[in-house]
């Protein structure tokens, strides 16, 4: 087998596995969210379909698939169909450069738990997610509904605004690590200081500020409470996806949760040492454990997401913009300067 075709085969397998796992993860993220929010709100959540409602996500998917797929009469048909795809594809693409685990050895095969390690990995994610805005904006516009339009407008403004602070907060990490490759960023976070504190970026001096700005902007980017204005159901009915039904709605839904997972994965990679964590046991366990650590860190972030959703009220649109431009952007700018100074002083 030539080098190229083995690469092609390996990557294809990885892609399929990752996408399948991702969609499964999304399904169970929705379950997790419903269950956790329910318990926050002193109710049971899904409990009928399967043990503790564990089959609920499957039932939901079936329901979405079997629902009538409607297109509003006055909608711009082509864009209306295209929009969920535009939203979904970038969301799924951005997972490709994230390292899930260490290099593992299965017999003679060496597997790297990452689809591809681009040398501009983090920028690639930004590039891809920045295209995702179109899905929401066009979906809102093409539905030919005033609520949708307002949702679409809100979301495009919101996403552009928060992308800025998102990008700036990552810059500090890049300054410290000196690379754009996510694989290398994770590799650099291995080991411990004084034998106890893991060498995660979050513990490097000014980077907790960037983590803060990153995570806040990331919540805004993923349109989650308290920043879920594009779909604010109490003002805009359902925002940009008011008119969407069936699997087209399902795509938007998937996108939202994939984005949540991606954002958590990036946060883990950039600040929390990625897949690093204590490994022990036989060789196969050593291969699997990093994956486990990575997933648990993501789940921790997801739980945080859900927790905020259960706790906080929603911002108003102008307050959201003011918060982004007047607080987060200056803060992350100042943080970049601070980090540069620290890095320069250390060098």
């Amino acid at each position, binding site marked *: 087998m030539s080098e190229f075709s083995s690469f092609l085969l390996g990557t294809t397998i990885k892609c399929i596995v990752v996408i399948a796992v991702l969609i499964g993860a999304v399904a169970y993220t929705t379950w997790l969210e419903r269950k956790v929010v329910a318990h926050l709100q002193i109710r049971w959540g899904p409990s009928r379909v399967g043990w503790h409602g564990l089959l609920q996500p499957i039932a939901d998917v079936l329901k979405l698939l079997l629902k009538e797929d409607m297109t509003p009469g006055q909608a711009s048909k082509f864009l209306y169909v295209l929009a969920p795809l535009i939203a979904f594809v970038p969301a799924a693409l951005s997972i490709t450069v994230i390292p899930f685990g260490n290099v593992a050895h299965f017999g003679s095969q060496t597997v790297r738990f990452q689809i591809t390690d681009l040398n501009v990995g983090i*920028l690639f994610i930004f*590039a891809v997610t920045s295209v995702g805005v*179109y899905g929401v904006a*066009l979906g809102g516009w093409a539905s030919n509904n005033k609520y949708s339009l307002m949702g679409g*407008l809100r979301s*495009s403004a919101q996403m*552009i605004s928060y992308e800025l602070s998102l990008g700036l907060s990552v810059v500090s990490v890049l300054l410290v690590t000196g690379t754009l490759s996510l694989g290398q960023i994770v590799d650099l976070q291995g080991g411990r200081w004084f034998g106890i504190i893991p060498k995660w970026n979050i513990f490097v001096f000014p980077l907790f500020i960037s983590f803060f700005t990153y995570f806040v902007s990331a919540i805004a980017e993923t349109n989650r409470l308290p920043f879920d204005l594009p779909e604010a159901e109490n003002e805009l009915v359902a925002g940009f996806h008011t008119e969407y039904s069936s699997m087209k709605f399902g795509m938007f839904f998937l996108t939202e949760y994939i984005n949540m997972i991606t954002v958590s994965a990036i946060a883990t990679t950039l600040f929390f040492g990625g897949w690093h964590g204590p490994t022990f046991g036989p060789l196969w366990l050593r291969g699997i454990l990093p994956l486990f650590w990575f997933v648990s860190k993501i789940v921790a972030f997801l739980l945080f997401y859900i927790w905020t959703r259960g706790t906080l009220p929603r911002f108003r649109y102008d307050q959201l913009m003011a918060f982004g431009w007047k607080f987060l952007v200056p803060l992350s700018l100042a943080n970049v300067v601070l980090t540069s100074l620290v890095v320069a002083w250390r060098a």
Partner: protein
Amino acid sequence: MQTIVFFIFAFIAVAAAINMLVQKHPIHSALSLIVVMAMLSIFYVMLYAEFLAVVQVIVYAGAIMVLFVFVIMLLNPREESHRTRQNRFLLVAGVPLGLCLMAEIVILLRRAPLGENETGRQLVGTTEAVGRVLFTDYLLPFEFISVLILIAILGAVVLTKREL
């Protein structure tokens, strides 16, 4: 292999560009332009300039075109009527300008060294190379442009806040 890929994407790029001109609704034109941008970024990747490719998408597709689409959605114009198409001024000014542009491209292409440039591969498009060039040889223009953009931003702020 590369050539095939190139031609596929080149075809898409040209088709999208033509589509951009032909489409009557501004939002369709804008979307076609985004497709062109995306194709350009693929060409950058093929030229081993990943950084440029990614920046192309982030800046043009992810930011500038979003604003375009935003404005188009906000104004919500109807389909363009044929009136502007028949504007004689466009014919008079457009054809010579187009010819000029064509000539420029031809001249540039003739001057450019054809064939693969192995040394250029590693140096041109990577993050490090771009950074190094920007902050050494082209530092002055780079700073000038930053100041220019800053002025533009200030101007925009002043224009929008005029009523205050």
